[in-house]
């Protein structure tokens, strides 16, 4: 019976079959041609994208050839038109699905490739991949609905609103995302670099570069979040990768002091010497450092209260000069400093020195320095953070680490030198800082001298 039917209708079968086979062969030949061309381009240009095209279309292209061939065969067949229509829809559905899967695969691999090439942050690559996936799936669904004749106006409207929302987000996020790509491709800085924004003065180590912001950790531990678009528009100084980490971070202290009256006073040299023997160290410290601190804005005025009083109240310029010329920097303890001043006064008394009395109201008042020491918000893990904090320290804090810790707390060495040697192993720099006589600088001059000394060291280290 089937043979009878075939002998009667051989044309209706043969023609569609011939068309199908012919188109299939043509499509497969074309496929082979395109694949060979892609391979050649890949070799010639070295761009791996051509390989991605070739690999991802390998199987789908066979499906496409088959569906095109089958569809044309159905078209030329004499089967009823409603059968023809349903078969076409089925074939086009198969075509659209395989195309969508192919595009998803291709887009994923191309975006990864592109991200690797531009060194885009992972998050930026993933975001782009998600966006592409949404677009492909959306187009595929719409195409299928169109094929099957479903009403798509409402869906298009919804898709339009969604696109608008994506656009609005992109307006906000887009510039940062683009900036992230620019920053990554330019490789001007990366995680771990120490950077400084010249316009705003923010600086610190880059801890993260994501698709919206660059995170910078300042020496005081605070994190500054800078939008990427700002990073592309401002001048950034990149000091490079971290320098040697200290074994222990340097913790800066804030030091404020106030004056407490002892009620003790001297009217002449004898009383001055006698009182100096019994007053607490805090009094010796105050009277040998107070003038210096109170007038720290002046270019070095190495003087002390004892010398000033002997000059102004007793009018003994010779003794005043001797007292003023005591080189405090050479003393490592307040007791030794006290004994030196007493010795000078007693020597003068032994030589029959001034027995003058200060006028009423002009007595020497012994004052005690009370220091309050609180951990400041700054700390430094390496020399770069250290010099940066040094620039911002309050005068009181600088004073504490250089003058007070060395002499008053009896450490014998200023805190900076101790840390540079012990925690950083920078013995030479530590010695240079220790040799810097703070008593011959104004406080701001001292700060500048320290910064310059350390900057020079960093510069040399970087060149090496």
């Amino acid at each position, binding site marked *: 019976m089937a043979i009878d039917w075939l002998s009667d209708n051989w044309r209706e079968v043969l023609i569609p079959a011939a068309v199908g086979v012919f188109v299939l062969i043509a499509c497969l030949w074309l496929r082979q041609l395109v694949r060979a061309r892609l391979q050649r381009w890949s070799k010639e240009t070295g761009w791996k994208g051509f390989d991605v095209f070739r690999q991802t279309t390998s199987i789908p292209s066979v499906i496409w050839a088959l569906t095109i061939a089958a569809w044309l065969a159905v078209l030329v067949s004499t089967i009823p038109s409603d059968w023809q229509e349903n078969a076409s829809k089925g074939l086009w559905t198969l075509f659209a699905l395989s195309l969508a899967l192919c595009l998803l695969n291709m887009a994923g691999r191309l975006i990864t490739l592109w991200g690797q090439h531009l060194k885009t942050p992972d998050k930026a690559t993933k975001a782009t991949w998600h966006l592409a996936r949404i677009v492909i799936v959306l187009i595929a669904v719409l195409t299928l609905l169109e094929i099957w004749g479903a009403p798509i106006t409402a869906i298009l409207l919804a898709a339009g609103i969604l696109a608008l929302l994506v656009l609005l987000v992109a307006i906000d996020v887009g510039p940062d995302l683009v900036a992230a790509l620019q920053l990554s491709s330019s490789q001007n800085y990366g995680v771990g670099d120490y950077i400084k924004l010249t316009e705003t003065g923010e600086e610190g180590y880059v801890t993260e570069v994501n698709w919206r912001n660059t995170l910078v950790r300042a020496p005081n531990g605070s994190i500054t979040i800078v939008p990427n678009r700002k990073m592309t528009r401002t001048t950034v100084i990149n000091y490079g990768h971290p320098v040697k980490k200290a074994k222990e971070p340097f913790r800066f202290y*804030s030091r*404020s*002091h*106030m*004056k*407490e*009256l002892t*009620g003790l006073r001297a009217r002449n040299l004898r009383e001055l010497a006698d009182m100096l023997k019994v007053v*607490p*160290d*805090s009094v010796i410290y105050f009277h040998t450092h107070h003038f210096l601190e*109170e*007038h*720290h*804005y*002046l270019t070095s*005025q190495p003087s002390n209260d004892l010398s000033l009083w002997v000059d*102004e109240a007793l009018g003994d310029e010779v003794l005043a000069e001797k007292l003023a010329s005591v080189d405090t920097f050479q003393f490592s303890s307040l007791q030794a400093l006290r004994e030196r001043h007493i010795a000078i006064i007693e020597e003068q008394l032994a030589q029959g020195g001034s027995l003058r009395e200060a006028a*009423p*109201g002009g*007595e020497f*008042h012994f*004052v*005690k*320095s*009370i*220091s*309050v*020491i*609180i951990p*400041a*918000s700054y700390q430094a893990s390496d020399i770069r953070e250290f010099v940066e904090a040094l620039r*911002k*320290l*309050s*005068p*009181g*804090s600088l004073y504490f680490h250089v003058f007070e810790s060395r002499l*008053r*707390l009896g450490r014998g060495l200023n805190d900076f030198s101790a840390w540079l040697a012990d925690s950083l192993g920078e013995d030479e720099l530590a010695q240079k800082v220790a040799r810097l006589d703070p008593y011959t600088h104004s406080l701001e001059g001292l700060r500048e001298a320290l910064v310059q000394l350390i900057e020079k060291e960093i510069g040399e280290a970087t060149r090496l």
Partner: protein
Amino acid sequence: MKLPDYEPIVGKSTIEELRLLASKLAGREIQNINSTYVGGGVAEILNHMIPILQELGVDARWNVIKGSPGFFEVTKKFHNALHGRKEPISEDDFELFLEINRKNMAEMDFHGQTMFIHDPQPCALIEKKAESGGKWIWRCHIDVSNPDERVWRFLERFVIKYDATVFSAPAFSRPLPVRQFLISPSIDPLSDKNKDLSTREIDAAMEAMKIPRDKPIVTQVSRFDYMKDPVGVVKAFELVKRSIDCTLVLVGGGATDDPEGEKVLAEVKAAADGNPDIHIISGQARSDIEINALQRASTVILQKSLKEGFALTVSEALWKAKPVVATAVGGIPLQVRHKLTGLLSHGIDGTAYAVRQLLANPDYARWLGENGKEHVRHNFLITRHVRDYLLLFIALDHSEDVIHL
């Protein structure tokens, strides 16, 4: 005025330091008590200090004792006697002082964890300590180094009951069995009295005060008070005028607790004897901006006091980078370091000589003025004063000399 407003003047680190210290006192209730809301340095400082302490998180309050005119007559006599002047003070005067203090003790609400009592007028309120508790500090703004012993002994029995006392200069202190701290007062660089003014503002103010600007201007800004020696200023000016033509301006307001002003003013006018180059401006009609403008328009500023508390007018003049000639009394030597931040003098002749020196050497005068401004920036602005008060409140809880927090 907010704390960040001071940053451009004193630097960010100074403000950070204040916040750090204040964080150790967060919520501490400090009750300030004095005798007047207006006039005089104490009220002026408190007016600026309280909002800053509050901004830092310290619960600072300010109350004023109520007193009769008779009470203020007595406290004015106390003030003069503590400065060493002989004053006729009767037993009734002492009794009135105690009665007003007792009355205030009964009426006032003593709620501070730290009670900060300013000057002698409310000094006897310490009797309330046993009942209200807390730490009590007596802040003495005047020089009590050579007081009338009768008045000092009367006050001393109250002073020794305080936990601590505060003086403005080392020389002001007395041997006392309580801790004594040294805190200089201060000026507010953003107040109308001290803020920067444009040339136009200065010109307008000088025109309003009808002070000609064709000659160098020598100015003293002070209450009309014997202690400020305005008559001595007129005499020194007459000496200067012999060789250098210039103008003298004497300007002063009044305080509600200062009933003596009119009498002194009359004596100054008599001494000026109608000299057209001497301009005497009195009363409270002149605004702070006008006084500011006058100081800025002056060539040399004088402070020829015979006795002083601290003399904030000197800080004001130095802050405007003006060369200052001042007598070496009270807190003035702390501000004017001779030949470094100004010139110190001891009498009428010395004052006249120093003024002539400055008028004849404008470069030297400018150098002294600029040094003076930096000296005030670092040591006599309100930010340093706030810091000292915070340190004082902290130090009261500790006995060691180096306090680690």
